[in-house]
């Protein structure tokens, strides 16, 4: 049998790793939604340069592995004189990357709204920004809950990549503990269980959110 006797003493350290993972994932989702909404409206804009910029952005951030993006921001930016703390670089990277994916998820939602939703809003004189944020976005979020929850779970797992730039999130913490105790099984299994619980909670939250919005709103 595996000996888990070293685990209780390591729990406070693991907990600090969990907190960092939660912080990074939350930042990724929040930044991703903001960047994603902006990029999505740029992508759907009739302004061609703006649209081109959004296409370029999305292709770039979806086209390069997050791991490579993290390496570049951590190792290469300082070489050209840009010194930013590792945590800021990592948060920025995962947020910008999430934005590219979320822009496309949201675009799917925007394009499935009947054009009449916007037309009826224009006819009572609502402004374009009001239509975007208060008429269209609430409906789009509802339509894209499954996709957004999916992306959130992917982001929680992607945050483990940030361990390579020396930030003590859950994976990095488990790695350190495994090495110092010579017990890889115990600590990686514990990390796996924690990730599993976090992501299960997110999918339960997703089901709840879908059900709640279905009771009120049918498009």
């Amino acid at each position, binding site marked *: 049998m595996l000996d888990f006797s070293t685990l209780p003493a390591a729990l406070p350290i693991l907990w600090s790793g969990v907190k960092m993972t939660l912080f990074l994932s939350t930042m990724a989702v929040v930044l991703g939604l903001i960047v994603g909404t902006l990029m999505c409206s740029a992508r759907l804009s009739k302004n061609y340069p703006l649209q081109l910029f959004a296409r370029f952005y999305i292709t770039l951030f979806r086209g390069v592995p997050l791991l490579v993006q993290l390496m570049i921001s951590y190792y290469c930016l300082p070489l050209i004189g840009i010194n930013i703390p590792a945590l800021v670089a990592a948060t920025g990277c995962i947020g910008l990357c999430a934005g590219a994916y979320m822009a496309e998820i949201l675009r799917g939602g925007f394009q499935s709204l*009947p054009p*009449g*939703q916007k*037309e*009826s*809003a*224009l*006819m*009572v*004189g*609502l*402004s*374009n920004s*009001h239509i975007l944020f*208060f*008429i269209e976005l*609430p*409906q789009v979020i*509802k339509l894209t809950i499954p996709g957004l929850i999916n992306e959130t779970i992917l982001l929680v797992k992607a945050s483990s990549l940030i361990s390579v730039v020396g930030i003590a999130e859950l994976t990095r913490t488990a790695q350190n503990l495994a090495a110092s105790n010579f017990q890889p099984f115990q600590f990686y299994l514990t990390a796996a269980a924690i990730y599993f619980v976090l992501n299960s909670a997110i999918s339960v939250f997703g089901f709840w959110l879908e059900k709640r919005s279905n009771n*009120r*709103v*049918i*498009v």
Partner: protein
Amino acid sequence: MNKSSANEPIVQVQNMNKSFGENQVLKNINLNVHPSEVMCLIGPSGSGKSTLLRCIAFLEQYTGGTVLIEGDLIGYNDNADQRKLASTKELNRVRRNMGMVFQQFNLWPHMTALGNVTEALVRVKKLNRKHANEKGLALLNKVGLSERANHYPAQLSGGQQQRVAIARALAMEPSVLLFDEPTSALDPELVGEVLQVMKDLANDGMTMIVVTHEMGFAAQVADTVVFLDQGEILLKGSPKDVFQGPKPPRLQQFLQNYMDRNAFWE
């Protein structure tokens, strides 16, 4: 029954054309709609009647001629033989005089009936929430739905949704209401309640342009009936002139088709 044609027209359409690329869908349209006038646009599908209505609202850009709402050109700025698209702000200013009711209702599904009616009162007219709710409830009462104020659109029948949409359009106090086939998406049993609300509005003196397939409504309520075919106005006149006077063959055929379809007893 023509109530006050002496006044300035609210809507003036002059030599208006509309093309989608090579395809000309409206040809040289001329119309005047006076205060309190009810004008019904009838015609076969694809005749351009909905496009005409959408050009008046500038949801489609007309490609020639002018459309004046209360004397203001909608959608464009004309100066010294140069025509430019109007700014959003100017477009909104001219549109303020119009309300529109759509075939698919287009209520916002994440807001209650009352929320749909009051949204523009709060955001555009800047009324406070309490005042807006009072006004919204009065409007819902007018269309017979004050008891459904806190229902979401999905909890309402089609006829009720369309009546909420009418209340929403009335909230901004437009001088003309545009209806784009308001009963075409409804179960036959629910058509009557929407037409009744429209009749009440007409009796109150609301100026209305109605694209419709309801010939009965056109005959009973309209001051002017306009028959469109292939993008042109073939006939314009009082319901009596259009339905009982001498008819161009295309109108004869259109009405015969309508009567054949609706006849169920000799």
